[in-house]
């Protein structure tokens, strides 16, 4: 991070002032304004999920847990795969056992065996943190332990989190949880340690079907960015105004 001494002082003083004076709490910059003022703005990470390609193998979940040191058997996960089976009577059967870590190898959902004859459509939907432009989880953190980096990823400071759980409550997507070992809030960060080294997130590498892909939305030549900008993509729960940055191809009205 290049940052001159003067800028640093300015920011440090600004931070101190901001934290003393509640006035700054009432300045709501739009994100475009904020972004325009940030120097290092040639990277903005986004993600593309093609639900039509996902076969529900769950290898992404497995790789994520191992890569990010999330206890393997604990029932929490940074990314997960949901299965939607819509029967001909219009009923949606949804499950994600163990977050889909072990794949989906049976036709049983929530203890109910589903006759393939009755299925109208069925698909898998991988989920992960949306790295929102307006992350409500960050807004509600009382101590500044979670924040948005200048490349758009939301991180959690494990040394500073007090573990109040407010961010977990504020996320409409349910991506946050308490890390059972570190006892602080935890979430997907697009494998920040990998993407900043030019690697793919672990889940993207683990996916054999190209259902998961990472994009730098500021790079017009990025092939994934091209898909996002030229094809019809959707986001989850846009009614919350969070401006999510995980884009989906083949989303269905039944997807929660």
């Amino acid at each position, binding site marked *: 991070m290049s940052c001159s001494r003067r800028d640093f002082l300015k920011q440090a003083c600004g931070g101190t002032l901001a934290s003393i004076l509640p006035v700054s709490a009432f300045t709501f910059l739009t994100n475009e304004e904020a972004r325009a003022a940030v120097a290092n703005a040639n990277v903005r990470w986004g993600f593309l999920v093609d639900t039509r390609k996902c076969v529900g193998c769950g290898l992404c979940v497995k790789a994520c847990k191992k890569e990010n040191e999330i206890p393997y058997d604990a029932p929490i996960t940074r990314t997960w795969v949901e299965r939607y089976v819509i029967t001909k009577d219009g009923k949606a059967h949804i499950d994600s056992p163990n977050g889909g870590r072990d794949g989906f190898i049976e036709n049983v959902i929530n203890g109910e065996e589903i006759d393939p004859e009755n299925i109208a459509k069925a698909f898998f939907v991988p989920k992960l943190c949306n790295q929102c432009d307006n992350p409500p989880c960050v807004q*509600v953190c*009382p101590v500044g332990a979670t924040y948005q980096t200048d490349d758009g990823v939301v991180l959690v400071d494990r040394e500073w989190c007090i573990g109040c759980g407010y961010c977990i409550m504020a*996320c409409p997507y349910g991506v946050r*949880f308490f890390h059972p070992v570190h006892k602080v809030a935890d979430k997907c960060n697009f494998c920040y340690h990998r993407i900043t080294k030019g690697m793919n997130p672990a889940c993207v590498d683990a996916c054999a079907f190209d259902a998961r892909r990472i994009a730098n939305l500021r790079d017009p030549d990025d092939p994934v960015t091209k898909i996002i900008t030229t094809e019809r993509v959707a986001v989850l729960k846009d009614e919350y105004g969070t401006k999510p940055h995980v884009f989906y191809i083949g989303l269905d009205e039944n997807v929660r």
Partner: protein
Amino acid sequence: MTSEAVVHGVEWTIKELFVYPNEFIYWSIQIVMYPYMTGLVAGAFVLSSLYHVFGQKDLKEIAQFSLVFSLALLPAAGLPLLLHLQQPTRAMEPLLTPHFTSAISAFGIVFTAYGLIVVSEIWFVYRRYFVDQVNELKGKEGFGNMLRLNIYRVLTMGSFDISEEALAVDHKAAKILAGVGIPVACFLHGYAGFIFGSVKANALWMSPLMPVIFIMSAVVSGIALCMLTYIVIMEWKAFRKRRTEGATAAVEIKGAEIDIISKATTYLLGFLIAAISLEILDLIFRGYTAMKSWDILRSVMYGKDFVNIFVLQYTLGNLVPFVLLLLPGRTLKRTVVALLLVLFGVFMMRWNVVIGGQAFSLSFSGYMHYHVPIIPHSLETFKEGLFGALTVFATPFVLFWIINKYVPSLERGEEAKY
């Protein structure tokens, strides 16, 4: 899995149908206790201010008591948050790096400010008493007296002037603080409501009415608890007086007590009506607008939580005490029953908001059931279980017992001139 790696929430959450993998009841009984205790603090203070600011003379006796009681309640409002934090050693961080866009960040500041107001007001009300005690204890022998003398010395903060003029200033300052304290108390509790009301991810919580509803029910519960504690203590005194000085003295105590209780009941009923109206308005509005979340909300309210909401909270906690207090020929016993029910009703309201808000999944396709850990088998199941909650509830009474030894708030007649 080692015991260290237990996921927070797993032990008391049971999932049904489709719930996102990371969803658990993260905010459990301590977060029910938090607005409940905060509400009691705010309510107790408002009750005392009715006398100090608005000059409701007939409330004088209970006002003195509820002021001191609200100080005893104050630590118990912060305690549940401390018990709930996953990193309790970092509890001071909201004061160090407050992120003011978060409703919780203000807690430390509002809480401290409010604490200072209460302490200052008590100081102004009791300063003359402290000075008198110092003068009286001066020159007395014995370790106990020395200790008391020094405690009172500290309590006077070095100000020994008890001239008429100085006392008049004290009185004025107490009045101003009581006036300032009312909005701060409402803010303290209103923003506890804001903590929930501003969570847009939660369909049940998100409502601009939430802070107002919280304030109203806070005042209701605060007044009810003060009245209840007051009655219990006064009955105890009357009982003792009857044994030492005979029936006449006891009747005298009782007479004064019933007057105060009648007056306080009027206020209680007023705030209760406001609270119920707002809650019903909120409910009707949700049903009428029937947004996307209404299907699951309805199935929770009219189905899974029906007993909790409509039987325990509205009927047993609101309607029954309302009738009990309004019916003519009210006796002290009936009042006590009604007050207990009111306190229970407000607790259920907190429960139905905090736990009810997590009874359904963010996916709107599944449910979560909360099973309070009763017998603790680890620190976590103690802290976030029945005994943790009882600890929080018992704290203010223990504190009041200690504080009242030095700041007597229950004396009457000649002693009650302060």
